[in-house]
């Protein structure tokens, strides 16, 4: 049970604002006990209240809810090349955050640093208040990862792969639980096939299922819909939305502006290792729709893609 120093706001619905250690956080009432005590669970930010209705009906500000991921001055170098240059951003709880950028902009390097696959030269990464550079395994236990190109041991069958990765995250699954999980993602019939025999869409579904098998606080998706047909893409979007509804936060990279606009609460544009802007897709368009660089590339109504190309340039990157 969460012990609160002060309950700032408790509506008749299931949501409360709790101050702990001087910080306010949004919680939902998970259980209401007979003795009047409440069991609270963190609330997804999308439905969290950012203001407190005062008695006179006016909105009063509450302290900002601590982000699930805080990246500060992240710098990643490969020899003389500075792939990520002092990048800072924060992902709020329950938020879907898109990291956009052309090829070689530093998206995957940023993600790799968060995942602990590359060692940053500078910067701090706090995941759920855990310093991931000092406690990488504790941080990894709280994150689910879908890499750009996922590969599992080719000799293992799907059910064996699920059991392996669940175990690595500390989750023990019975054979029936594995089959039930595979049924949810429509792969029950493929349980005894090797990974390479699955189609691209099936591989992505399995990969995402494995990434969330331990119910992580933060899900990192590196170009999750690359190479998928529209049906599989839409299905993946709805799964991502479902994960968010269950309280998960998501950081994804994508080249698809349509995807970013449809799925992300906020997006950050990165180019040449530097973060150019962080906004909601709507605000980003509003803010830059009169920028001459954007107007130059826009055909009709300004889209997120126009803003993206306007800010990062039209030249092709390799």
């Amino acid at each position: 049970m969460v012990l609160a120093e002060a309950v700032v706001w408790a509506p008749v619905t299931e949501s409360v604002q709790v101050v702990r250690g001087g910080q306010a956080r949004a919680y939902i009432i998970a259980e209401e006990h007979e003795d009047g005590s409440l069991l609270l669970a963190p609330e997804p930010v999308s439905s969290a209240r950012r203001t407190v209705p005062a008695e006179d009906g006016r909105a009063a500000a509450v302290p900002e809810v601590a982000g699930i991921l805080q990246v500060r001055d992240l710098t990643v170098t490969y020899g003389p090349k500075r792939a990520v240059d002092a990048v800072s951003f924060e992902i709020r709880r329950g938020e879907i955050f898109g990291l956009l950028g052309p090829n070689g902009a530093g998206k995957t390097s940023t993600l790799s640093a968060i995942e602990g696959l590359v060692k940053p030269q500078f910067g701090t990464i706090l995941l759920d208040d855990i310093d991931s550079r000092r406690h990488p395994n504790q941080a990894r236990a709280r994150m689910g990862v879908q890499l750009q190109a996922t590969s599992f041991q080719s000799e293992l069958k799907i059910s064996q792969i699920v059991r392996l990765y669940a175990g690595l995250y500390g989750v023990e699954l019975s054979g029936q639980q594995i089959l039930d999980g595979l049924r949810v993602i429509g792969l029950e019939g493929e349980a005894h096939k090797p990974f390479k025999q699955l189609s691209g869409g099936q591989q992505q579904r399995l990969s995402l299922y494995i990434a969330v098998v331990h119910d992580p606080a933060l899900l990192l998706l590196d170009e999750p819909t690359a190479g998928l047909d529209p049906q599989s893409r839409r299905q993946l979007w709805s799964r991502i939305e479902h994960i968010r509804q269950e309280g998960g936060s998501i950081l994804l990279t994508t080249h698809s502006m349509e995807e970013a606009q449809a799925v992300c609460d906020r997006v950050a544009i990165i180019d040449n290792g530097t973060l150019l802007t962080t906004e909601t897709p709507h605000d980003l368009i509003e803010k830059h729709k009169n920028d001459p660089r954007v107007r130059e590339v826009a055909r009709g109504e300004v889209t997120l893609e126009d803003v993206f190309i306007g800010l990062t340039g039209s030249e092709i990157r390799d």
Partner: protein
Amino acid sequence: MTSSRATGDPPLRLVFGSLLRADFLVFLQHRRALIISLVLPVFVLISTSGTKATDKFGGAEFVIGLAIAYGLLSTSLIGYGLTVARDREKGVFQRLRVTPAPTWTIMTSRLAMQAVANLIIAVVVVIIGGQIHHISPSAGQYALVLLVSILAGAVFLSIAQAMVGLVKSADSVQAIARVLFAVLILLGLLGQSGALGTFWSSVARWTPVGAVMTLFAGVLNLHAWYSRDTLALLACLGYIVVFGGIGIRWFQWDAR
């Protein structure tokens, strides 16, 4: 998804158990490769079954030692080295590394399965060799063979580890492993038999194959444990330290 949110390090028992189970399943899938690894040792045992041929190698114990060394060389250098190089190139290690599993558990689990393969090879070769060359090792000697096979396996595994540490491409690892395999086999066969002269005979004795072969011969004939057997033991330990050190120091989890 499970109902409770992950909050802490998963238990090491569960992590290591999961890796071992998966690596054991992979090991079972590769059982044909294990059988193929026995072809060369059995061929050596059969082709040296005559007294004259056996004497050329210093006796039946040395022939069996040579056969075991070839089996371990095959399964460790080519089997382990290539599997690691290919998995690294496919990104299997990167996927494992983004889990909370400590990296040492990933490698230790693989090495443990390789040690099992080495034990199987050593025991099978000793049994077949004993039949062909009319040797009846005692239970104690079998135990010593198992012990030495772990040590000998570690020699070849450390060489394989150094190879995948210094070479990133799986294709290059495959090519180098084959060349190294052929060189060590020829040096063992021709050098130890004296066919290349006394200089190469001395060189062959101190190669990894030669040192391992001497060590196996030593434990199969405990009544005659010479100083050369002790030196072979030290040579094996030296190979493990040097090649293992190189392999750990320069190993990269990502092939890019």
